[in-house]
């Protein structure tokens, strides 16, 4: 599978996919997209990079073990709901802040943080599984 063309394109492709995944994640509240699909795109990017460049390369590139990313995702998703307790509304109630930004305004919200958590969980879990499967015997003994 490691053809020259694929190996050359894969890093750029993975980079574009990662950026695109963030785009999909953030537009998700109003357009098709969201944390789950964004996470899947990001995980595919990592999987593709892994097939092209080898798992060792990917692991050193992302620095953090993928499952830690997933764990962090669960944590921030869970914590995003705690903020609502301060406002005396039930756990996980959406809180919104609209910050003026030029002519427009930027919406910051707890559901967005929650969605980022979903994104990280999907990204972390799927890429952890994909990378573990991509690892060949040689990767273990180098």
């Amino acid at each position, binding site marked *: 599978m490691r053809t020259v063309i694929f190996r050359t394109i894969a890093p750029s492709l993975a980079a574009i996919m990662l950026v695109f995944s963030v785009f999909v994640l953030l537009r998700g509240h109003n357009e098709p997209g969201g944390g789950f699909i964004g996470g899947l795109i990001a995980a*595919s990017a990592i999987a593709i990079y892994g097939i092209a460049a080898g798992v060792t390369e990917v692991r050193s590139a992302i620095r953090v073990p993928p*499952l830690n990313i997933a764990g962090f*995702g*669960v944590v921030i998703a869970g914590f995003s709901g705690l903020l609502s307790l301060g406002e005396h509304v039930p756990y996980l109630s959406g809180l919104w802040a609209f910050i003026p930004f030029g002519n427009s305004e930027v919406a910051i919200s707890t*559901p967005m943080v929650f969605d980022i958590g*979903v994104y990280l969980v*999907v990204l972390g879990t799927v890429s952890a599984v994909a990378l573990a*499967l991509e690892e060949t015997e040689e990767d273990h003994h*180098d």
Partner: protein
Amino acid sequence: MASDLDLSFTLVALAPFFAAFLAPFIFRFLKEYSSWALAIVPAAIFFFLASFIPAIVEQKLISAGFIWIGAFGIELNFFLDGLSLTFGLLISGIGTFIVLYSGAYLKGHPHQGRFFAFILMFMGSMLGLVMADNLIALFTFWELTSITSFLLIGFDHSREASRRAAIQALVVTGGGGLSLLAGFALLNLVTGHWNMIDMFQFGPALRESDFYLPILLFVLGGAFAKSAQFPLHFWLPNAMEAPTPVSAYLHSATMVKAGVYLLARMAPILGGTTLWGTILPIVGGITLLWGATFALKQTDLKQMLAQTTVASLGLMVMLIGIYNEAAIIGVVLYLLAHAFYKGAMFMISGGIDHSAGTRDITMLGGLMRKMPVTFVATILAAAGMAGLPLTIAFLAKEEMYGALLHADWMTLLAQPQDLLAVIVILVGNALMMAVGLAILFKVFLGPEKPTAEHAHENSFSFWIGPATLGVLAVLGGVMTDFINHNVVTPVASPIIFSDVEAHLHLGFDLIIKPAFILSLLTWVLGVLIYLAIGRIRVNLAAMVEAANISFDKIFDWLMFGLVRLSDAVTRLLHHGRLEIYLTLVFIMFAAVFFGPLFLMQVEWQPLQIPNLHFYEWSTIVIAIAGLFAVVAAQTRLQAIVSLGIQGFAVAILFLLFGAPDLSFTQFMVETLSVVILALVMTRLHLDQADNRVRADKLRDGSVALLGGVGVTALMLLVLQGTLDMRLTDLFAATSVAIAHGHNIVNVILVDYRGLDTLGEISVVMTAGIAILALIRIRTGGRQVGIGAPKAAKRGGGK
């Protein structure tokens, strides 16, 4: 109701838990002085509770608390009446001495901090239990006492015997707790209340309800397990594996009395029926005789005490079952007497063990001169145990005999069940007295045994508890007016649920009462049994040997059987053959879809060919072609990729029919599953070709068809009817207005049903961890770890 009262009550129940949390740290700083610091907590609670005595004497009911889970009517609320106050004072008062005593007993033990934490947690649970008003709160504290006692009995966890005893106690009392929960749930069903105060008003109607029998049996099951009633008594003697302070605390004054407390508490609601008056005296009577008899067989001081505790609990259950005023006064007095003398006795036995190095009564003798203070304390406690005049136990015994004696002897003879009860109580008391005498005389009098050589009087912390309790056991019997006014009346009244006027007094006219003749008989019999104790012990031991069966063994068989059963079930269901797992899963899948079709007896409308565009038809054709490609595929990889064709075609259909979100996700899922399946293939070194024989193919094919047809049929059925659009409309109307999002799917996922999503992503991650573990196991050799392996990190550095 003042809110600071609410707060202070809740604090009383929770303070021991805070103290428990701090105990290990306090121990780290204060070392052997930590027991003095920690004893402040129970002492403070004791004085706080004692401040309510005047109010309680005036028959006031003090209640306080917080709403816990309002939606279910569950509150964390407490109330004090005479009964709970007495228990609270015993728990905190004896608890103070126990904490001091533990400090001395466990001196130099490395895990003393942990021990204090456990015992304080237990104290808190017990205080909560006796003060709780709400049944759910009571149940929670009830189970907490089981759990903390498990920790305490198994404190010496490196020994197998204590581990076994701990598990046994947990299984029996925890199992009883479940029975109790069932009883409480039924009580709530019948009365509509969770608070006991409300239930008291409901008494007569409840006793006539159809649920009375199950409620009674469930509640009794819980109380009997906790209070070690026959045939669930066996865990209590085994629990003597615990350090002695634990035995003194849990098994004299507190935990085992929880069952007695519950029975007394429930008596106004459940008591007074023929059933109550039959079950309790019979079970209690058997327990009394059984425990008292087997106490004679023992030579270990703690075992003797444990068996007599079983007997005492039986006596109290019996008296609550008789449920007349004199019997309840007898219980109240006996409760106090037993807490005092048995607590003292346990602490004394620990002191003797500590000093002489053994608790075996045949190895001990002549300790009187070496341990004078302990000796005096033992005289007081043994006098209490024997129920000699001037002790509380004496008054208790007079009352309980009085409860059964009627106007004269002739009426007693005409009532065989009362006569039987009198005989049982008399024999039981005599047996317990013999045990008390044995402890006093064999250990302290007679020639000095070799063990006495090194014996010495223990430190203050060792004897202050037993001495105080011993003095109380006697003092209480003298100050009859005080006891009448401050204890008996306020405690007995809520049990009987009417005003009790106690009339205890000391005087020579007691002697002419028929009850006194029974007391005399008890003493004579007790002395006779004591004199024959050596022979009785040998005979009993021989009998037990000959019987070769015990409840302990039966418990072991049951536990062993349970383990075997779960093992068999696990093997049956979890055999490790993936083919069968998958077949079962898909058959169930099909059944779930077909079931409703058969059950609902649907009428099928003729299928209409939908009017679709050319490109929509082409996509469907591609999907079908993909399926044929899967079936026709020569190699497995081909099949996997072909499955992708079908998946993509369906994703396009989603797109065409206006579900871009779904389609988007479907594309990604299809891509990733093809990639992952292909990776798994290479990973597992599977053959390229599919090697199944024809029969296997037929079987798998039919299961697949069944599942597919089931899904299709259900989908068609759903489309036949009209869809309920209410939720869709609601979401469409509100998603922008209240959740600021146009993408309804996303709004539902992250906002409306955020908690579900939180659960789902946790499952996703857990599944990921499991998959990773499985993959790593296959590779073997390397350490299984989550996250990047070290090898990869080193590789990355190159």
